[in-house]
């Protein structure tokens, strides 16, 4: 595959905290437009790796390119070209929906005219134009998360990182959220997502499972289920994660 087809390239990523090796020689690629699932037990090293890919932390060693930018020398360019959303933090609760869009639009460098146009499209997409002037804090969790995702991609980033975006959300809204992910992916946005819901792992194009700082599996869900003779991703995960020494 030519370099331009890869959204993320990781070769030999190592991250140490003192003597503790959080990421142990990770090597993988993520292709443009892919929905890439990043799974692992707690303590496996997922968050550490994700922070490095977002430009929030430096590797100890290894080669990494995100959107073609080098992680060591072009850190700020990486941050400008990605979107990010997590379960713990999405939007400012004490600002209205419109104010949040204006704020994030500004941070991502959107011109006023673009921002207004995107805001209209975004609210149309959610079929909720009336929430524009409501405080985000007053919205149900499911709406907040959907909104946060659309705001995270408001600047049409090449990659969006989602850190357990559907934790605690009701089962219907969870699926609506994944519809939004599918749409983004079909528009060419690469989606890098971590989740503890194993059914969601099956929505991904490819999935990697980290155990004790290393990648123990990397394949499509169908491929993994075949290799491990499993009926679903939950069984695959249980087989792999049980071997972990670091997990608690």
């Amino acid at each position, binding site marked *: 595959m030519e370099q331009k087809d890869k959204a993320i390239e990781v070769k030999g990523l190592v991250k140490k905290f003192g003597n503790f090796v959080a990421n142990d020689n990770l090597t993988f690629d993520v292709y443009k437009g892919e929905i890439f699932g990043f799974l692992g*037990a707690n303590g496996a090293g997922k968050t550490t790796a994700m922070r490095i890919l977002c430009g929030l932390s430096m590797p100890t060693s290894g080669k990494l390119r995100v959107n073609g930018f080098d992680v060591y020398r072009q850190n700020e360019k990486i941050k400008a070209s990605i979107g990010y959303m997590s379960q713990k933090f999405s939007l400012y609760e004490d600002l209205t929906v419109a104010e949040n869009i204006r704020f994030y639009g500004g941070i991502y460098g959107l011109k006023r005219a673009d921002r207004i146009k995107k805001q209209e499209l975004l609210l149309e997409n959610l079929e909720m134009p009336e929430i524009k002037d409501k405080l985000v804090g007053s919205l149900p969790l499911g709406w907040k998360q959907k909104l946060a995702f659309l705001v995270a991609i408001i600047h049409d980033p090449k990659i969006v990182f989602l850190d357990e975006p559907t*934790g*605690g959300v009701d089962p219907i809204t969870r699926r609506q959220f994944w519809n939004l992910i599918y749409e983004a992916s079909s528009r060419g946005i690469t989606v890098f997502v971590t989740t503890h819901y194993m059914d969601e792992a099956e929505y991904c194009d490819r999935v990697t499972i980290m155990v004790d700082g290393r990648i123990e599996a990397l394949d499509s869900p169908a491929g993994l289920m075949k290799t491990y003779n499993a009926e679903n991703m939950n069984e695959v995960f249980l087989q792999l994660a049980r071997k972990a020494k670091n997990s608690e």
Partner: protein
Amino acid sequence: MIKFNNISKSYGDIAAVGNISFGVEKNELFGLIGPDGAGKTSLLRMLVTLLLPDSGTMEIAGLDVVRDYRKIRLMVGYMPGRFSLYQDLTVEENLQFFASVFGTTVQENYHLIEDIYKQIEPFKNRRAGKLSGGMKQKLALSCALIHKPEVLVLDEPTTGVDAVSRREFWDMLDKLKNEGITILVSTPYMDEASRCDRVALLQNGEILSIDKPQKIVEKEGQRLWKVKAANIYNLLTDLEKWEQTKSVYPFGQFLHLTIKGESFDRGVVHDFLIGKGHESITIEPDFSGIEDVFMDLMTRQKV
């Protein structure tokens, strides 16, 4: 053992819990199943005397929760949704602190927490704030049990925890049940309902259904088709637009499809999908699980 009688609670305009009544039997493992905002945390905080209801009463072992709150606090072990132990005390210090506050010692009830504590004992001199998520969970559980409570209340103990650790946690709860403890646990994970003796499905401050999980599925569930095809996204959009579709939801690699009307005819579904040009079609009969039922009840609740 535990009774909720017409409990209501609002926060300003938001009605968190609306006139809820149910009971938990002695030594039952009872699950409150529902997403964030359903009212689970409000109910549990009221039960463990941390929050006053707007109306209604609650009882534990015949004692009124509001009037006899001091006695209630001695009988209950509580593990809140967020880690709330002392971050700058070590594992061992936290455990000793909780034991002393309840007028007991770690040694006295050690057998109760032994299986759990053994897993974090190697880290007993580490400050609680420096523990990983899974270890914090085990410490919090140990501290909630150290005074041998009759009732254990756990608020979303498995949220944010991986599938292996979740399974192990529920294995621990099974063992605690064998010690005669009544356990009330809340969770947003639908699949955990099957690990409970009985569950209450909760959404928007109301109980959608309450019974043994298998009984809820028998009563509210229906036959459905598990459908798969080469392009699952197109499959989903086509079925969403089909006028015969009652509901269609992704469940991992399959879609769960229910059809309007009484007939359950595979041929009708197959013909429709062939007509839309789908390939590698799989259509298998199946029956609702707890998650299917929850979503169906949610949809009916909105009406």
